[in-house]
């Protein structure tokens, strides 16, 4: 965020700039001092000693570093990504269907679709996972997929609705004027445009879905967190800091790259399509975009 566009201040003059520099340095030193005290305290507890981190390159108990990294990246991250890779397309497909059903002329269908959306958007993902696990008696993997799918399907339906509502009315009127049916209008005219403006919101929702897959840890699906815990139990609790750092790093890398992608898509749609209302604009965003975390 550049200072020139800030609502709060004028562009600073030389005196204000000098004051800001001094304040910035003081504030920075304060933050660094706090971090330093924390690090010093942690070092006193031996957190940074090499043997606690050795699990990452030269693990004890006759295991090779390759085994550890394989269990984290291939088994752990693999299971996390697998859950997301199954749930995301399902949620997208069902979300699209729900959004379309919500715009039909048949009142009972429309109401039913709204009820389904409101219901699943208002419930915790974890509760739905437990529902599949305990009520349907499904496996942990299936329960994770179920929870992720039904929740995100409802959120995506809302995103699609907002995307369709943001299109200029003339689009559907013109489609009707050249004799397209309602289905054709949706398929050929409205959805292609709406999907473009929605792409950033959809990618952002994918980040939410990926984060929520970690709930599998609680319902007994062996994903990334479980892999960290298993390793920590095997190599002793002292290694948990190193293993956690790797796990957190993996989540950060994956999610920040996805968020960057969303931002880039946003820039792109702004340039090419120039939608009348930007559904993805920061600020009072559409409902689907802000309830998702």
């Amino acid at each position: 965020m550049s200072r020139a566009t800030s609502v709060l201040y004028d562009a600073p003059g030389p005196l204000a700039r000098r004051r800001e520099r001094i304040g910035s340095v003081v504030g920075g030193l304060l933050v660094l001092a706090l971090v330093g005290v924390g690090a010093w305290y942690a070092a006193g507890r031996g957190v940074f000693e090499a043997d606690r981190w050795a699990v990452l390159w030269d693990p004890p108990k006759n295991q090779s570093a390759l085994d550890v990294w394989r269990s984290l990246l291939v088994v752990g991250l693999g299971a996390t990504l697998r859950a997301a890779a199954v749930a995301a397309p399902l949620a997208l497909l069902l979300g699209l269907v729900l959004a379309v059903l919500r715009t039909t002329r048949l009142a009972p269908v429309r109401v039913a679709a709204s009820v389904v959306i409101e219901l699943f958007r208002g419930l915790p993902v974890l509760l739905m996972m437990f529902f599949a696990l305990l009520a349907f008696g499904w496996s942990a993997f299936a329960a994770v997929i179920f929870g992720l799918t039904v929740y995100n399907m409802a959120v995506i339906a809302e995103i699609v609705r907002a995307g369709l509502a943001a299109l200029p009315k003339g689009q559907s009127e013109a489609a009707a004027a050249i004799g397209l049916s309602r289905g054709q209008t949706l398929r050929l005219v409205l959805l292609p445009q709406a999907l473009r403006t929605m792409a950033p919101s959809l990618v952002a929702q994918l980040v939410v879905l990926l984060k929520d897959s970690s709930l599998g840890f609680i319902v007994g699906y062996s994903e990334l967190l479980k892999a960290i815990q298993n390793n920590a139990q095997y190599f002793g609790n002292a290694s948990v800091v190193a293993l956690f750092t790797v796990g957190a790093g993996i989540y950060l890398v994956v999610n920040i790259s996805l968020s960057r992608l969303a931002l880039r898509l946003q820039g792109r749609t702004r340039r090419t399509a120039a939608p009348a209302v930007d559904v993805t604009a920061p600020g009072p965003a559409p409902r689907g975009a802000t309830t998702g975390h």
Partner: protein
Amino acid sequence: MDLMVIADNMPAYLAGFRMTAQLTIVAGLGALVIGLTVAAMRVSPLGSLRVFAATYTELLRNMPLTLIFFFAVLVLPQFGVVLPLGYWTAVGCLTAYTSVFVAEAVRSGINAVGVGQAEAARAIGLTFGQSLTSVILPQAVRSVIPPLINVIIALAKNTSVAAGFAVVELTATGRRLAQQNPADVVLVLAGVALFYLVVTIPAGQLANLLERKVAFAR
């Protein structure tokens, strides 16, 4: 199917609901305080504070809540910090996680106020304090309230993660009751769902209503 199973276990449901509500309120207040502070840092003229606030936001926003609980319960003890397991751990984790979303909502609310508004305020000679309190904040608050309600709704749902870390709130109550009444699992969990929906749906409608009001006021 026996509807009585919900009535019979009403005390357990209510206790779970109370815990969920308590977590939401306490963590919500904490998140508001921290979130406002972080948002203030984020829009401050001091570069170092901006960088700190942005890092804090970026870190917590991209980590799953489960990972933060995991950190508090299993990693922090290695640093010599042993939190009392259960309620206060949950409050701490939910506060930290939610504060980031509060900060983002507030920041985008401030940025959503047109630059021309502040320029006009300065042009007619208002001081910084005056333009902040009588021009910018009234407009910012208005556009911040609906997303903030959505943040609190998300928090109410997120309290369920505490069920995995030794807090007996609604979801944990549901799991226990389901295991005790294997014949009525669907009904038992539907009861839990009802308690969540009683909070989340009206709050969502309120956010919608306010949002529409704001849209007209613009």
